[in-house]
């Protein structure tokens, strides 16, 4: 057994253990928040999953200033432009077995009702502010400022001192100098702080006693306090549960945050006043109307989507493709796949962008390796970049150059942060920087740094064993349905976004690579799939890759829609003709993709040709003042699991996550189960993040980008705001004050037999919760002619809303 040490405490062990459980229960109101350097989209209400979507929104609305549904004004506009119709409403009312004649007028009355404005101010404060206490604001501001100093990840030059013992111990060590406490306690402050327990759990238990909070009300009272600082609590949730044992950031736990917060309260507040706290915010009584409107709005899109899918044999994919290209399931790949297939004989596949190899990757100049797999998995090995054969001297030179650049940067940074020095520095060097700053401002140009040719081989020391590489390769190929008919070139294409001076840059990268660029994962997988020993192992397991097939890695820049072939030096000469044509077609597909996408970007110059558009997009990616380099995954709406023939040639408008799946290769359903419990969960998190950033931006959105104030590498404050902002910036979901993202829950369309899906639903509780709790919609297509939706524990034949309303009218006549 691994020793974990026992902290000394005078408090009964049972009380401490129970306290941790109650703190965890309270904090489930909020999801973990990943730091900015690996921004991972999450369902902000994932801790309330078991309550179902509507229950979770209701519960969150009790504590947080949010509604959780699109506003009446938004729905009214959508209704008037025909995006949601009476037919959609009728279909939902029939599904819910509600009286149409009574309910429909109520729904229309809801549209013209007053806008449901979330209680103003900061989360969780309403109760106290209404009582004119205001203490919670002062306490939380002080605590949040302390958290910034505690968790700054080394950004500040003047550190806080010893932080390894956690937030509470660190705070207690310096609390006697706290201005708020000194102002209120005056000469008693030193004594009061000395009397606080050294242990955070004990301090929190003491504060609970002092504030006269009984065990029965404890979770509710803790939840109220958690709701006052959702950003910091969410970050603490990530740090304590998801960051892993090697995380170098100071340890921050929710229990420590609460211990400090409630110690302040115990020291400063009158327990009698606290007792009279009002109940939490009540959820809006019209949430049922809002839920019905949302469902009708979703229903409209679902009908459109399902009507697009072919009911009979459509245009065929290339039989003998010149190349097969595997893209990430990311919705941004949809456009590129469609346009590439239109340029030539190519077949494309969708698979999670880590290509099945769960590893951490350390670049040649990196001190630490970063995970490149979905956060639901742990890296199985560390792959270190090494110079390609013959490139050792060039690599040494490159590393020296990087080290010099880093030294200059650090010196510059130190010069800026020493007290008083910025004045001198600006006077002395400001003029020298003017030309470069002017060029970056008015003529932004992005240039990728080119280094020596390198290799990322998961078979190297510290990486994966041969057996693991064979298993991961087999699993990936089976899951994407690519086990025979290999083309001479098989491209694994990861993706990345390109933007500068953007704290949320990693939100544009690959979610399946833990918020990092997907190129390294493609390189790792391609290298493994070209390895003769891996191919021999695969052949023994029934997957034969002919020797003439070559896997190569590529990366799609989603901001400029350019595709770069990676590791060129590894590609044998014999593939040059095919590679030239492939690159030409990829470039053409990228241009078409960019042209289609440009129509939705708000500030694109009109009447541009493809060259001008490419120049504009490149400039946009390099512009340090650009607040919206691309739309990212805004408007994501569906997840399709099936062979490409299900979607081939159909314009899905870049809104659909697409995972390849061949039902005939999966008799026992294990492949489909893997897809529905892994990539689907990631897609649902992304979808929910966009949804809540759109409908509850006050709580679950990061606010206006122009006001962002980054805190270390952790998160952003809005201006001088005290709490970290959760979720996506407003510019990621809206433009000119109007939502660009359509807030909807994901609809999942799976081409598979119903019995297979039934069996998976029966044995997988997460999927049951997602579908049964209506966090998403599950539609099965057992054949081209049939579609069924899962509702209330069983399958219902899919009926478009127009047919429902038609039947109802016929019935009334």
């Amino acid at each position, binding site marked *: *057994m*691994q*020793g*974990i*040490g*026992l*902290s000394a405490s005078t408090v*009964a*062990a*049972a009380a*401490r*253990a*129970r*306290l*941790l*459980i109650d703190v*965890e*229960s309270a904090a489930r109101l909020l999801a973990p928040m990943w730091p900015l350097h690996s921004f991972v989209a999450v369902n902000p209400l994932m801790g309330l999953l078991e309550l179902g979507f509507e229950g979770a929104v209701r519960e969150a609305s009790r504590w947080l200033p949010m509604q959780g549904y699109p506003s009446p004004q938004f729905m009214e506009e959508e209704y008037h432009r025909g995006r949601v119709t009476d037919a959609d409403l009728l279909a939902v009312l029939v599904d819910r077995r509600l009286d149409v004649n009574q309910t429909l007028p109520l729904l229309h009355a809801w549209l013209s009702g007053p806008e449901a404005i979330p209680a103003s101010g900061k989360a969780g404060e309403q109760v106290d502010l209404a009582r004119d206490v205001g203490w919670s604001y002062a306490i939380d501001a002080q605590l949040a400022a302390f958290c910034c100093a505690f968790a700054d990840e080394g950004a500040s030059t003047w550190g806080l001192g010893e932080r390894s013992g956690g937030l509470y111990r660190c705070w207690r060590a310096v609390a006697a100098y706290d201005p708020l406490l000194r102002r209120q306690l005056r000469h008693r402050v030193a004594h009061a702080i000395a009397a606080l327990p050294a242990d955070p*759990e004990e301090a929190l238990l003491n504060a609970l006693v002092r504030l006269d909070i009984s065990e029965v009300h404890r979770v509710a009272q803790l939840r109220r306090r958690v709701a006052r600082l959702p950003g910091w609590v969410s970050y603490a949730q990530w740090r*304590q*549960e998801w960051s892993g044992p090697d995380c170098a950031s100071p340890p921050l736990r929710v229990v420590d945050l609460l211990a400090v917060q409630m110690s302040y309260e115990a020291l400063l507040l009158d327990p009698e006043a606290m007792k009279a706290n009002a109940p939490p915010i009540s959820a809006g009584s019209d949430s049922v109307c809002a839920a019905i409107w949302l469902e009708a709005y979703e229903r409209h899109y679902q009908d459109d989507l399902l009507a697009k899918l072919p009911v009979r044999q459509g245009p065929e994919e290339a039989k003998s493709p010149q190349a097969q290209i595997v893209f990430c399931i990311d919705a941004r790949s949809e456009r590129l796949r469609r346009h590439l297939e239109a340029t030539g004989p190519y077949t494309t596949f969708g698979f*999670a962008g880590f290509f099945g190899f769960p590893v951490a990757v350390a670049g040649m100049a990196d001190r630490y390796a970063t995970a490149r797999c*979905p956060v*639901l*998995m*742990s890296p199985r090995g560390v792959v270190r970049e090494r110079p390609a054969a013959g490139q050792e001297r060039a690599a040494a030179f490159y590393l020296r150059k990087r080290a010099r650049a880093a030294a200059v940067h650090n010196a510059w940074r130190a010069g800026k942060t020493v007290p008083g020095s910025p004045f001198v520095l600006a006077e002395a060097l400001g003029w020298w920087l003017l030309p470069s700053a002017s060029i970056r401002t008015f003529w932004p140009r992005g240039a990728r740094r080119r280094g020596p040719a390198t290799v990322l081989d998961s078979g190297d020391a510290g990486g994966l064993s041969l057996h693991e590489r064979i298993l991961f390769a087999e*699993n990936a190929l089976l*899951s994407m349905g690519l086990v025979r008919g290999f083309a001479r070139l098989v491209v694994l294409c990861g993706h990345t976004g390109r933007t500068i001076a953007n704290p949320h840059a990693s939100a544009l990268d690959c979610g399946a690579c833990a918020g990092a660029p997907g190129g390294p994962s493609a390189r790792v997988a391609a290298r493994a799939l070209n390895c003769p020993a891996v191919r021999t192992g695969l052949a023994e397991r029934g997957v034969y890759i002919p020797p003439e097939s070559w896997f190569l890695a590529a990366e799609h820049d989603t901001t400029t829609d350019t595709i770069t072939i990676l590791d060129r030096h590894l590609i044998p000469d014999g593939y040059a003709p095919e590679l030239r044509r492939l690159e030409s077609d990829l470039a053409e597909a990228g241009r078409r993709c960019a042209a289609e996408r440009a129509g939705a970007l708000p500030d694109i110059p009109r009447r541009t040709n493809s060259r001008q558009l490419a120049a504009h997009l490149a400039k946009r990616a390099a512009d340090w003042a650009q607040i919206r380099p691309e739309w990212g995954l805004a408007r994501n709406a569906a997840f399709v699991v099936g062979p490409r023939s299900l979607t081939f040639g159909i314009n899905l408008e870049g809104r659909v996550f697409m995972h390849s799946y061949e039902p005939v290769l999966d008799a026992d359903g*294990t*492949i489909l*189960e*893997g*897809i529905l*419990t*892994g*990539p689907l*969960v990631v897609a649902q998190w992304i979808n929910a993040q966009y949804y809540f950033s759109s409908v509850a931006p006050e709580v679950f959105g990061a606010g206006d980008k122009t006001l962002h104030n980054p805190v270390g590498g952790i998160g952003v404050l809005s201006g001088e705001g005290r709490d970290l902002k959760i979720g996506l910036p407003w510019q990621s979901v809206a433009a000119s004050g109007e939502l660009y993202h359509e807030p909807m829950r994901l609809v999942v369309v799976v081409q598979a037999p119903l019995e297979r899906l039934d069996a998976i639903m*029966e*044995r*997988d*509780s*997460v999927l049951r919760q997602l579908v049964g709790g209506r966090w998403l919609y599950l539609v099965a297509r057992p054949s081209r002619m049939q579609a069924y939706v899962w509702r209330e524990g069983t399958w219902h034949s899919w009926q478009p809303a127009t047919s429902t309303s038609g039947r109802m009218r016929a019935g009334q006549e």
Partner: protein
Amino acid sequence: MQLEGLSRMTRVEVVTTGQNVALLQGVFKSAGAVGYTAMSSVWGLGHHGVHPGRLAFNERDTQVLIFTVLAEEAAPDLVSAVRHWLSDRPGVMFVSEVYVSRPEYFR
């Protein structure tokens, strides 16, 4: 079974989903346990039906067996806390008597 020279202690085992492991580690520690052992991807048939052992792309939602061994006098605190936790969470707990050869490892 020859138990001479062995020390009687209590083993507390919990089967739950992987996402709860971090919390249980903290609870074990708070209740006085000095270590634990966890086994991921366990599978079987339970109150909510069959639980799959391994999911291809998700380790967080598979079943985990986590157990600790501690002194008999410390066990009631931990058992009480875990029972409290299980009141609204999926999972099961087993408490049993065990005999160990190196009791100092568990105190």
